[in-house]
């Protein structure tokens, strides 16, 4: 054992390297982001304007709220494919319990604004609880459980609005979705609050540490006396509640609640989390990564709207850039983990 002392005594400079390498997997998506920003700024004069920065923030806000919960789930090495569906269902529940104009033609049950919000929150909580129950109690892999929930959420949407579109939401939510506090839209503020709280909880609370530990090595967490099932159940519910909030604010932001409205948010939110560098295998990453990922996708989507290329080509180009970003991430991570691979 004494032999080890000398071996590790000269570890100072590797430590610095380690730190840099550790940063690398965070720096990689950041570089992608910088590259995209520079590229679009050169390619379009309207891209790098203050107004457009506001646009990008606006545009990623709903995804951001969803991605906060999803980050927790993915940090635990699980997945939630039902985020968009739960968001949609919650938004529709909210509208269902709000008085709609007669032209909306929905046989709904209007209640007080506060009650509607609570009912909507309760529904997303309940859907999350079903996910949590399925994953932790019954033992259905989260991929499958949330795949089923995706369809159930769509079913709830269909049942409630029956092909119609609802336009009204309670005033509080309408304010959050459509108004601004000075120059800053509330929806951006809500997203920022979610990201901030999400980050603080992950970094400064016991629960946050457990999330990383459960994702890093579930068995070890269990043998350390961590209530792994409770943590997993919590993240599934957190994810659903974040999605539900995104759905509520979203229907206000988009001005309507209808079936399939949020479909594209599933790929967007998963992409944001993984492009940011949070590992699908759990234990590594965080809200910081997710923010970078959100910005990469937000800038990409927005930037492509600013430059004049064939609409049909845009889809392909977006796919290719996404792939490139992922490859860069992987190489950065490779460089990093070359060092810190666990011994066998």
């Amino acid at each position, binding site marked *: 054992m004494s032999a080890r002392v000398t071996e590790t005594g000269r570890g100072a400079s590797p430590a610095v390297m380690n730190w840099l390498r550790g940063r690398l997997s965070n720096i990689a998506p950041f570089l992608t982001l910088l590259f995209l920003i520079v590229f679009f700024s050169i390619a379009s004069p309207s891209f790098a304007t203050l107004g457009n920065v506001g646009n990008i923030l606006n545009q990623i806000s709903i995804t951001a709220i969803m991605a906060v919960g999803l980050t927790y789930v993915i940090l635990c090495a699980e997945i939630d494919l039902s985020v968009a569906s739960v968001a949609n269902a919650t938004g529709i529940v909210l509208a269902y319990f709000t008085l709609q104009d007669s032209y909306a033609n929905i046989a709904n049950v209007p209640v007080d604004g506060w009650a509607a919000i609570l009912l909507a929150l309760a529904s997303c909580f309940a859907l999350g609880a079903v996910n949590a129950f399925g994953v932790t109690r019954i033992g259905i892999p989260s991929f499958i459980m949330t795949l089923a929930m995706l369809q159930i959420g769509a079913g709830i949407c269909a049942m409630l609005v029956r092909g119609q579109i609802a336009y009204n939401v309670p005033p509080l939510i309408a304010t959050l979705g459509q108004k601004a506090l000075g120059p800053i839209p509330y929806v951006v503020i809500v997203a920022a609050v979610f990201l901030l709280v999400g980050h603080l909880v992950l970094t400064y609370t016991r629960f946050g540490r*457990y999330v990383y*530990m459960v994702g890093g090595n579930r068995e070890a967490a269990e*043998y*350390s006396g961590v209530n792994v099932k*409770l943590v997993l159940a919590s993240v599934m519910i957190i994810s659903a509640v974040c999605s539900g909030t995104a759905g509520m604010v979203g229907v206000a932001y988009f001005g309507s609640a209808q079936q399939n409205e949020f479909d594209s948010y599933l790929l967007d939110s998963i992409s944001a989390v993984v492009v940011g560098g949070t590992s699908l295998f759990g234990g590594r990453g965080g809200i910081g990564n997710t923010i970078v990922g959100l910005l990469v996708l937000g800038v990409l989507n927005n930037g492509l709207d600013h430059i004049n290329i064939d609409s049909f080509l845009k889809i392909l180009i977006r796919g290719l850039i996404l792939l490139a970003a992922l490859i860069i991430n992987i190489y950065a991570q490779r460089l990093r983990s070359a060092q810190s691979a666990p011994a066998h």
Partner: protein
Amino acid sequence: MGVGTEAAPPLLELAGINKSFGGVAALREVDFTLRAGEIHGLVGENGAGKSTLMKIIAGVHADYGGTLRIDGQPLRFRSARDALRAGIGMVHQELSIVPDLTVAENVFLGSQPITRFGVVDWRRMNARAAELLRDLGIDVDPRVPIGSLPIGLQQLIEIARVLFSGARIIILDEPTSALSPPEIERLFGLLRGLRASGRSMIFISHFLDDILNVSDTVTIFRNGRKIVTAAASDASKGWVIENMIGKGHEDLEESYTSDMMLDSKPDAAVVLETSGLRHGRAFRDVSLRVRAGEVLGIYGFMGSGQLELARALFGKLRPDGGTLTIGGRQVTLNGTAAAKRAGVAFVPESRRSMLFSHEPIYKNMSISILDRLHPVLLRPAAERSLAERHVVSLGIRPPRVDQALGTLSGGNQQKVGLAKWLTYLPKVLVLSEPTRGMDVGAKEDVVKIVRSLREQGVGIVVVSSEPETVLSLSDRILVMRKGEIAREFASETVSKDRLLDAA
């Protein structure tokens, strides 16, 4: 020490092997020679580089410095496949079977017999597998999934796969850790038989008696270097230990004393009591009692149910029946968190299932006590200072609490796994195979830690299939056989032989 020189090139010759993982050297300028028809024992501390060298021979690691020759021919394997083709087979330290495939397929893993038409010949495969296993004294249906068998059998079948693969060079990296003594004897018989037929074997074990018993030649590794190679007949155990750890071995002798007086403590409070505990087919009718400041050893061969029992004491397995009383209160543990709350601590046998290798040392140590530091928030400063205390008192090297745990040696990792329970002493500490795969130095450290905890009044349960471990730690010993308590040793002298007899 006489290594004979012969005219013909040796079967396997490694010269100047260097290997590092991300800048950390695992092997430095290692020379190694294996002759045809010899059993070559390999010993060394944890992390000395034994497995790494073997993985180079077996083609798992392709990027290394130095040369490898077989029959004088320089070769470089790029994959396990290359090595297999060159006649090198290896039983890895970690069990590598495919649990969902049948026994027969696991025997022929990767080289299933095929018919003339290139189609897998299931009938021949099953017949051959049954036949080969029967030669080894294993009588199982070759068509059942191997995952449904006891772990010792799985290990034997994996060994059988390599032995029967027709390899000229057979590497066995700690193959006996999951085997019972009779199984080990049987295995040695087989190895000797294979040697007689001209095959060569490299055998790694931390059981020095076994090594000296079965090998012709012994090579000792320390800290990535080969220290010495000698004929086994010339080597004594003391001499081997001395070379392994690079210092005098007097202070290590104690743990090798096989006999010790067992005395129970009749007046201390009972901290753990079970009555009629049972779980499926793993164990049944287990009634035991542990007092504060007492170490209860539970010995049994692999698969005797003692590992499952340990898990049940920590709420990881839910017993089907019986009662569990901790600190005088009868409890139902529905999870490890509940067990922790009730005052039970647990250290599992596998490092992989105990530690977070990407996380720094201090987070590994504090994971179990976060709730005591603050109900909601983290207290990183407190975590660090506690960790620093443990690092010093346990002699963990390097003593840097921010270092990722995965970069520590196995023994040090194991100490970290223990340390997480030492800040707030539990009522009951359950240790499952606490010294498995540990070198003698690290074992001694564990013994010291356990003794000091006992002094502080913790009731300790040590579950192991290694007689030395149980004997060196316990005040009282229960022997389990096929899921039942077969025998209790208290207040008497126990030798290894008596222990084995009872199991």
